[in-house]
């Protein structure tokens, strides 16, 4: 133990656990306070109904930081994959689906021109995404340079872009803020292919394919080291359990069922936390895995911030648009054109970009989509322990169903569930009769159950106006908050969400280096 005093981490989400593990390994006395009775935040495996377990919210692993995996020895702490690399199957109501496997089109109703173009497109996108990926592990540069050496990290970003070479750099700069729809129109002709790629660009955001910035969100999805998403053994909760085990092994203490009510201040310094129970816990540093609004508005209070900064936090865009449907099924469903072996892959319903755009339209006007976009996994296909023999759990991200529906979710939740089941029935006739139990979590439910403002899985839109040195807002992108002793480490920070753990790793470094904003 060093004499740095106790460090409290609020929230045992994956980033909180990563941060706790790194700090404990550096010799800090770390206490993680988790509101719920389970570690993992939104990356948990939960029992849906007796015998059926599934991913409560997050259901695929895209971007888990390999440095974190290695540093914390997650394999030794039980992290294993039942499917290290998933194919994407774009469902086709009319028949044969499209199967994407890495940078190849394995099969499907697409032209040969598209088949050829696809590999080049993906390779190029991955080169561009790698530029973003190289920034993930860096603490973002200061926007207002206090010293000349602050200019260096900004220069590194420019260098990374320049090193793409003349042609790629031009293309990168041309497309980075573009709508994905326009890029896809330039590149492909098959609707099913364009739909699948447009879904990748927009899932988890409040963007449609025709929204600016959706190329950037697409590149973010590709910015990890893995070529395709993976499925951990035991579901997403297993990632969190491995992280918790690594943190505990490093010496961190994790207290479950301990919701934090507020931060304690002495003068202009955070000196601890107050729990819902009234218990006070002193700390020399408090690191919040909660989203920026929850941390700064609710736990700290806007009055302890500068006025303009408080306004920036208030204006942080964090309206979640994704709902989650979890089904317990009595048997393996039959999706049109998909054989049983393929049901363990990632299935998407986004037949063409226009379909997604129409699904997005209601979200602009605080309504939900009657024909939503779906990303489906049936994890029990590859991980039989999740359900009783012969039975299955289906997990679907449902978009668009915005947090702020005008009518209020209490009156709309059942109708949305009905609409999703109806849609599933079109692609998998008979599935409704197989449903043993169904759970629909709207963004409002996610906010309530997982304490994420707006129910947004990135803790705030991950778009160019809220990325890197602007994430979550300018003046707070370096993990240290304006109030001394307070840090953020969640998805609301650079490099964002999607079960990466990189924000937690960077935050730990900021804490240990004592780096300022």
């Amino acid at each position, binding site marked *: 133990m060093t004499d740095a005093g106790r460090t409290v981490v609020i929230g045992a989400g994956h980033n909180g656990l990563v941060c706790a593990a790194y700090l404990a390994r550096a010799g800090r006395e770390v206490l993680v306070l988790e509101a719920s009775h389970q570690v993992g935040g939104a990356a948990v495996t939960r029992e849906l109904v007796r015998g059926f377990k599934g991913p409560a919210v997050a259901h695929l692993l895209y971007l888990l930081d390999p440095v974190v995996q290695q540093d914390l020895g997650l394999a030794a702490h039980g992290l294993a994959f039942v499917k290290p690399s998933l194919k994407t199957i774009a469902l086709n109501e009319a028949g044969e689906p499209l199967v994407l496997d890495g940078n190849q089109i394995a099969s499907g109703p697409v032209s040969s021109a598209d088949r050829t173009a696809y590999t080049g497109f993906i390779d190029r996108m991955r080169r561009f995404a790698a530029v973003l990926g190289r920034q993930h592990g860096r603490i973002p540069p200061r926007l207002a340079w206090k010293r000349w050496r602050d200019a260096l990290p900004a220069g590194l970003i420019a260098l990374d872009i320049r090193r793409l070479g003349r042609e790629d750099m031009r293309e990168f700069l041309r497309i980075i803020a573009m709508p994905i729809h326009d890029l896809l129109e330039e590149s492909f002709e098959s609707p099913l292919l364009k739909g699948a790629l447009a879904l990748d660009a927009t899932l988890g955001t409040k963007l449609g394919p025709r929204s600016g910035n959706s190329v950037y969100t697409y590149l973010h999805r590709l910015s990890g080291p893995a070529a395709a998403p993976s499925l951990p053994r035991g579901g997403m909760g297993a990632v969190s359990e491995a992280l918790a085990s690594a943190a505990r092994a490093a010496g961190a203490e994790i207290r479950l069922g301990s919701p934090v009510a507020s931060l304690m201040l002495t*003068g202009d310094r955070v000196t601890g936390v107050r729990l819902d129970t009234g218990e006070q816990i002193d700390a020399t540093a408090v690191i919040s895995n909660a989203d920026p609004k929850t941390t700064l508005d609710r736990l700290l*209070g806007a*009055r302890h911030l*500068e*006025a303009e900064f408080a306004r920036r936090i208030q204006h942080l865009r964090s309206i979640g648009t994704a709902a989650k449907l979890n089904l317990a099924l009595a048997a393996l469903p039959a999706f049109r054109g998909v054989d049983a072996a393929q049901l363990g892959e990632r299935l998407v319903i986004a037949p063409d970009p226009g379909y997604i755009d129409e699904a997005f339209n209601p979200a602009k006007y605080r309504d939900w989509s009657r024909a939503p976009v779906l990303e489906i996994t049936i994890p029990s296909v590859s991980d039989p322990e999740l359900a009783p023999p012969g039975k299955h759990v289906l997990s679907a991200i449902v978009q668009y169903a915005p947090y702020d529906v005008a009518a209020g979710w209490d009156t709309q939740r059942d109708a949305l569930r009905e609409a999703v089941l109806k849609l599933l029935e079109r692609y998998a006739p008979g599935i409704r009769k197989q449903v043993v139990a169904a759970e629909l979590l709207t963004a409002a439910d996610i906010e309530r159950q997982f304490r994420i403002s707006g129910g947004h899985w990135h803790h705030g839109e991950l778009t160019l106006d809220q990325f890197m040195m602007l994430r979550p807002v300018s003046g707070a992108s370096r993990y240290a908050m304006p109030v001394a002793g307070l840090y953020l480490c969640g998805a609301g920070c650079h490099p964002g969400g999607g079960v990466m753990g990189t924000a937690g790793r960077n935050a730990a470094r900021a804490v240990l280096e004592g780096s300022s904003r």
Partner: protein
Amino acid sequence: MRAPREHYRQVVRQTPFHSRTAAANVLNLWHRWRDHTVADAYFDVALEYTALRNACAVFDLSPMTKHRITGADALAFLNRLVTRDVAKIRPDRVGYCLWCDDQGRVIDDGTIFHLGKNDFRLCSQERQLDWLLTSKLGFDVTIREETEEVAALALQGPTSCRVLRQLGLAGIENLAPFAMTTFPFEGTDLLVSRTGFTGDLGYELWIAPSHAERLWDRLFEAGENHGLKPMGTLALEMSRIEAGFIQAGVDFLPADRAIRTDRTRSPFELDLAWLVDLTKPNFTGRRALLEEQARGSRFRLVRLDVEGNKPARDAYIYDSKRTVVGAVTCAMWSPMAKASIALASVRMPWGSPDEELWAEIYYQKELKWSRVNARCRVVKGAFYDPPRRRLTPAPDL
């Protein structure tokens, strides 16, 4: 359908005293202050100034922006807004204050009137509603701009107390500087504060617009034998420079209007460190000001006694080695100090007391330009500071 709004047709408004100020303005000299018509001068700038310094003068203050701040968190809100400790401004007292942006750069200065429990008025030269509403987040307060709902006159000068007694405000002489009190006035309340922008004995009178003209008339009746004159902005400007007061847009650039960040100033750089209470746990700009305190400020506001009689308007300031170290922000020949005086902003470390500085003054005589380098002495405090300004009871001349 909504009734058409015609407010935009009137771009510049008249103050509640306009019928009286227009009649008094024999020079017909006007300008626009926060979209209100106000007099530059009424009959003779020098004589208006002379009335102010030797008898008393009245200035139409109505366009001053007034915000009403009420609610359970009113005090906490103000303490987060301004740099000084508002808890020290007791009820029925007025406090001079300033507020900064997040970077600790001054947005504006003004006065806080502690009207009652959880009830304050904030007066400022610039409109501040947007910044106040921004600052409101997280506080249980109601903020309303009430500029149009309150008419105001400044009555300033040695005989001002006498005139108010003549008006029937019994006991007004016992009102201490920066205190306020209310008198009944023809069926309404007349709020009187012992405040002003002239550096002399003086009062500010606040009343419902419906009673504005009546107040003006009664005041001039009362002042008839005490030298009371109306005074325009030009005479006021002379008096405030003599008093060493700064003005937004003249001596500093309001931070919310600045495009170039090095053009703004911190309270320390405006010689207003005494208004900054860094022992308060938090206010907007505090963290930046702490940093500035540790790092050192970049500028300093100095009051200069300039040799000779040429007003050093817009002059560059040099050190003894002929390096430009700053510039004058306002300057005049002061009849009371019998000196050419100026406020200037100079780069640190220049401008320490008794340091020799030079002003390069350009002046014109019959269209011929000349230049003079005048030695300047940095002086502390106001150029003109009569003891009566602070006396209680106020002298009853």
